[in-house]
């Protein structure tokens, strides 16, 4: 797919209007996973707008996002960056064999303090 096609696909999945962004950075300022992420919420918006989807697909950032939706909640323009992160993640894991997590991976992560809910959520999120 060309950059433009990738962009259109992301926009279709997310239903986000990236042109509304006024580049204030409040999303990134609100992000609790900032230090974990290579690309930050405002960069997702800008890079999607520029059709730079490939780096996002290849980045671990899409799995570091906590989906806390602080960026969506705080955005003064109603842009909803978290939906873009989600859309890129979906695009990545929908590829054949691209599941981030396999069922076999789960047991080794278990310890008595891990809530079962967390694993279920993660599994749902990181695989198709």
């Amino acid at each position, binding site marked *: 797919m060309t950059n433009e096609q990738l962009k259109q696909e992301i926009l279709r999945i997310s239903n986000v209007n990236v042109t*509304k962004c*006024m*580049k*204030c*950075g*409040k*999303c*990134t*300022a*609100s*992000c609790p996973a*900032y*230090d974990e992420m290579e690309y*930050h919420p*405002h960069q997702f918006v800008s890079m999607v707008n520029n059709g730079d989807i490939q780096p996002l697909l290849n980045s671990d950032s899409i799995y570091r996002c906590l989906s806390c939706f*602080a960026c969506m909640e*705080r*955005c*003064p*323009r*109603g*842009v909803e960056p978290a939906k873009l992160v989600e859309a890129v993640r979906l695009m990545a894991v929908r590829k054949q064999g691209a599941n981030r997590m396999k069922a076999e991976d789960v047991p080794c992560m278990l310890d008595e303090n891990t809530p079962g809910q967390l694993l279920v959520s993660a599994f749902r999120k990181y695989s198709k």
Partner: protein
Amino acid sequence: MQRIGVFVCWCGSNIAGTVDVHAVAEALKNESGVVFSTDYQYMCSQAGQDIIKNAIAEHKLTGIVVCSCSPRMHEATFRKTAAAAGLNPYMVEIANIREQCSWVHKDMLSGTEKAVILGRAAIAKVHLNAPLIPGQSPVAKRALVIGGGIAGIQTALDIADAGFPVDIVETKPTIGGKMAQLDKTFPTLDCAACILTPKMVDAAQNELIKIYSYSEVSQVSGYVGNFDVTIKRRARFVKEDLCTGCGLCTEKCPQKKVPNEFNLGMDTRRAIYIPFAQAVPKVATIDPDYCTMLKTGKCGICSKVCTAGAIDYTAKDEFITEKYGAIVVATGYNPISMEKFDEFAYSQSKDVITSLEFERLTNAAGPTAGKLLRPSDGEHPHKIVFVQCVGSRCDSCAEKGKEYCSKICCMYTAKHAMLTRDKYPDTEVYVFYIDVRTPGKAFDEFYRRAVEEYGVHYVKGMVGKVVPQGKKLMVQASDLIDGKQLHIDADLVVLAAAIEPDKSARPLATMLTASMDTNDFFTEAHPKLRPVESPTAGVFLSGACQGPKDIPETVSQASAAAAKVIGLLCKDHLTGNPCVASANEMLCSGCSQCANVCPYGAITYSEKEFRMPNRTTLMRRVASVNPAVCQGCGACTVACPSGAMDLNGFKNNQIMAEVDAICRN
């Protein structure tokens, strides 16, 4: 039957080049009612106009058609010509055979054919023209200014300077408005009080200016030149004419715990109070919500200490009615509520404040006597974070804040940052911005000085959240240029809150039938060419009620509005446009469809008695149009199903006749 003269202009070769003007004049001679038809090189010239005048006299013309350039060009000229020859000017119609014929068609044949048809349409219309006489209405030579901030004060001073009486209505106990609360003004840093208070005193001392403070407009009727306004003077329980403003009562009043609105609730005042030392009128006011005497009937200390005998616990609201020729709206603005912006912890911490509160904190007459101290513990802050665009530039779907840029925040934030660094060099100052907007004289230079000379840290990015932690405020923000997330332990956070029109503006607009935009700012008659007039004749706009503005802009608009008011009040009579709507009472059913679409509130209804067959009478509701208010758009004529409402100069049958003439071939 009309006796119509037709005058075909060559406009040199402009028309004659593509239209056979002789043929047009000849063809139109055959139209019914045409008794004279000619052509000439330049009809608008003196010689051309003389041809028209002579023909009117010689052929006893009752109507004329000039086939020439656009009516937007010379309709007024030819109307004057007709008037000079004793013909009612509204018996003139123009057929536009230049802009809409000769200039757009290259072919002589089709051009000539079209010119004849346009001439025929104009002739058909003139047949149904009736002489119109513009209405005259007297002008009450007094102006009303609603709002006593800098906008209202400046407007009033300018109007009074031209010799006309002006009344200012202000809801607060004193005039002065927002500017009275400010410390310094950008970009010159002169003190707001030093330039405002002399103007307040001027207004108070001017014999032509009457100030109704602690009052509001409760009813408006009438129209341009003749507004009847009822003003409600709220009971202040202190006789204005007796009070000397000594302030003894405000010291002795035992009720000390009243939040002081002038300092935005950051300190307290008494139940009887004078808002600030330079208040105009300098008269005490009793706050009925807190006064023990008014609430329980037990106290009366202020009355005992008042040597002037000015206290009157039995005072009631009073209503006065006055006639005005013009009304200026200067209701100003307020910062928006920060309630919906939880992320900045405004309601959790006293040390998160708005910029207006910051003004009071740095003002020598403010709660801290001008010392910059934290509201929570009175300590000197060492790290201050300013956040710009709080509630401005928000998308409507974000459901909080405003869509527009509040315009003044960039500059006052630069001012605050600069003044802080100037007075307290040990303080670190951060300004988080999205864009720094400084279009104004010496504005950008000012902002650059804040950065370059005063070392203010301007950070491109936004604050995500503020969390109170012990004595500190943990600020999490983004620095988009460095690609960093910042965590600042600030002592004070200042929010540049968006500004919005005063809440009193909406009901006022309804009373004035003045239109507003979706943000409740008043709409201008024309955004570019008539920026200080409202579409409602006789209502003018001054200051931030029309849109966000800084002081110099407000003052220029205030003076501009004053100039417009003076221009109106100079006239003894207003000559109306006679091309206005009128209702035929015999046909009118009183259904109110027309009043629904009238943008000017020009249509009123009354019960009228009609004679019926067999000597009976019938009371029936009918519409009438106030010709002084109607602007002649014609919206009502289409809303009216019976055709009772018609528009002079563009009557239903006139337009229909034009249609018929054009289609007759």
